[in-house]
């Protein structure tokens, strides 16, 4: 799925430098405890951890929606300011807008003309295979289709960095598997940096080049591991020995559930 309009600049992903980042909230206390890691351009990184471990907080810091209390989190692109795309756990579509008008939102906010925005957005809708549904309203879509719309929306600005916060958690397994493969295809085609938050070990192993495991709150980095699996991943992979071994290895590094730190 190559787009001829992609330039070299757009192919470049962003760099993330997370240096000793800490964050606390009143009421919950220290959530992130001196987290340090670095992500190279074009890497697909999964962030794993138990519920409440601060994975979402880390993602919000990366998105620029929040600031660390200590340390610094720097995001750089090869040229110019990095642009980010964000996919929430809930598809977060505006119910009063059609699929197409939902997808054009980031471009409208950036001041694009209606015609240009529609053109760009339609491309992304084609990429996620929702081109015929542009005139539908969110309430007419299935959960999986809403999520694909959300992904298309995130891609319209051709971001260097794509941030996803457990986007497939609320979907049934077949839809989830299908979307996971679609996401990898999109990443392989566009080459942006991806930071993917999840609590599912199998999902992390299937999707990512690299997995970061966080402990319970206050979260520390428990593991930073490069996944040794081929670049092209299909449904067959899920039952292969290599895959199962990787899952085991990661699962062993996960903190025991219920264990407070």
């Amino acid at each position, binding site marked *: 799925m190559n787009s001829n309009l992609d330039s070299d600049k757009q192919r470049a992903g962003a760099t993330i430098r997370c240096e000793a980042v800490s964050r606390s909230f009143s009421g919950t206390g220290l959530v992130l405890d001196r987290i340090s890691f670095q992500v190279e351009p074009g890497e697909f990184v999964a962030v794993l951890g138990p519920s409440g471990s601060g994975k979402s907080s880390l993602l919000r810091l990366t998105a620029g929606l929040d600031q660390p209390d200590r340390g610094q989190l720097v995001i750089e692109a090869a040229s110019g300011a990095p642009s980010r795309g964000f996919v929430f756990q809930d598809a977060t579509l505006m119910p009063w807008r059609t699929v197409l008008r939902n997808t054009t939102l980031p471009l409208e906010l*950036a001041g694009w003309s209606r015609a240009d925005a529609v053109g760009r957005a339609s491309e992304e809708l084609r990429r996620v295979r929702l081109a015929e549904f542009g005139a539908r309203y969110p309430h007419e879509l299935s959960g999986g289709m809403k999520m694909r719309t959300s992904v298309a929306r995130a891609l319209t600005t051709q971001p260097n960095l794509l941030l996803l916060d457990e986007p497939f958690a609320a979907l049934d397994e077949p839809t989830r598997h299908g979307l996971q493969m679609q996401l990898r295809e999109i990443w392989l085609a566009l080459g942006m940096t991806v930071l993917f938050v999840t609590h599912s070990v199998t999902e992390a192993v299937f999707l990512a080049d690299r997995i970061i495991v966080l402990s319970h709150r206050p979260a520390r980095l428990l593991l930073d591991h490069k996944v040794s699996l081929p670049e092209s991943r299909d449904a067959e992979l899920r039952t292969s020995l290599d895959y199962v071994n990787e899952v085991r290895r990661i699962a062993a590094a996960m903190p025991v559930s219920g264990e407070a730190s």
Partner: protein
Amino acid sequence: MTLRARLASWLPPLLPLIVSLGVAEVAVRLAWVPSYLVPAPSEVMQSLFDDRVELLLAAWATLSSALAGLALSFAAGTFFAIALSSSDLARRAFYPYAVFFQTVPIISIAPLLVIWFGFGQPTVIASAAIVSVFPIIASTLLGLKSTEPALLDLFKLYTASSGQILWMLKIPFALPQIFSGLRIASGLAVVGAIVGEFIGGGGLGSVVDAARTQQRIDRVFAAVLISSLLGVVLVGAVNFISALSLGSWHSSERNSS
């Protein structure tokens, strides 16, 4: 729909009405109940027919005043709510005074309105606006403050200006609440108009006033009937506009049968 189904939906609300009208008619004719307390329904119907031109003209006057008052309160109320929603300090400072519009008894400040706005329609419109403004402020404010946080995050992520957030997110999101407030306000606007007319003259209010002086209870009932119809018409208009705007996407419109 089959005839049976049609009957099943229309008969239950119609039956109590027919029975009570019948009882009232009999009671007045047999002089169980004196006619200066409760008029016979047939007298009210007669009154409606005899005075139909006058009642229609009066109803039109009241309706136009109520509409003007409603337009005023909608504009002012929405503006006020938007202003309050954008500043926590402003809201804490001024919202308690908005509540004043809810609690002030309009019948006691109506004479003041006459002093400020003079006799005639300006007072009536002012009265309708004052009585109907609070539901709009309250509902609109609630709607604006209930924006889904995830959507707000989305807008902030794409560095939307507060103007963009207000216009493209908060207001559309608040539309169901805004219509809900408008629905309540439209009925109140009719009430406010009629109260204003008691003091300022004109419309159905003066019909009721004169009928009262002349002990024509049947005329009073006829005028009251027409004024409830006005309320129904206004609310119906709001519902229509609401269905147009929300019909494609809001569950409240889609699920109503």
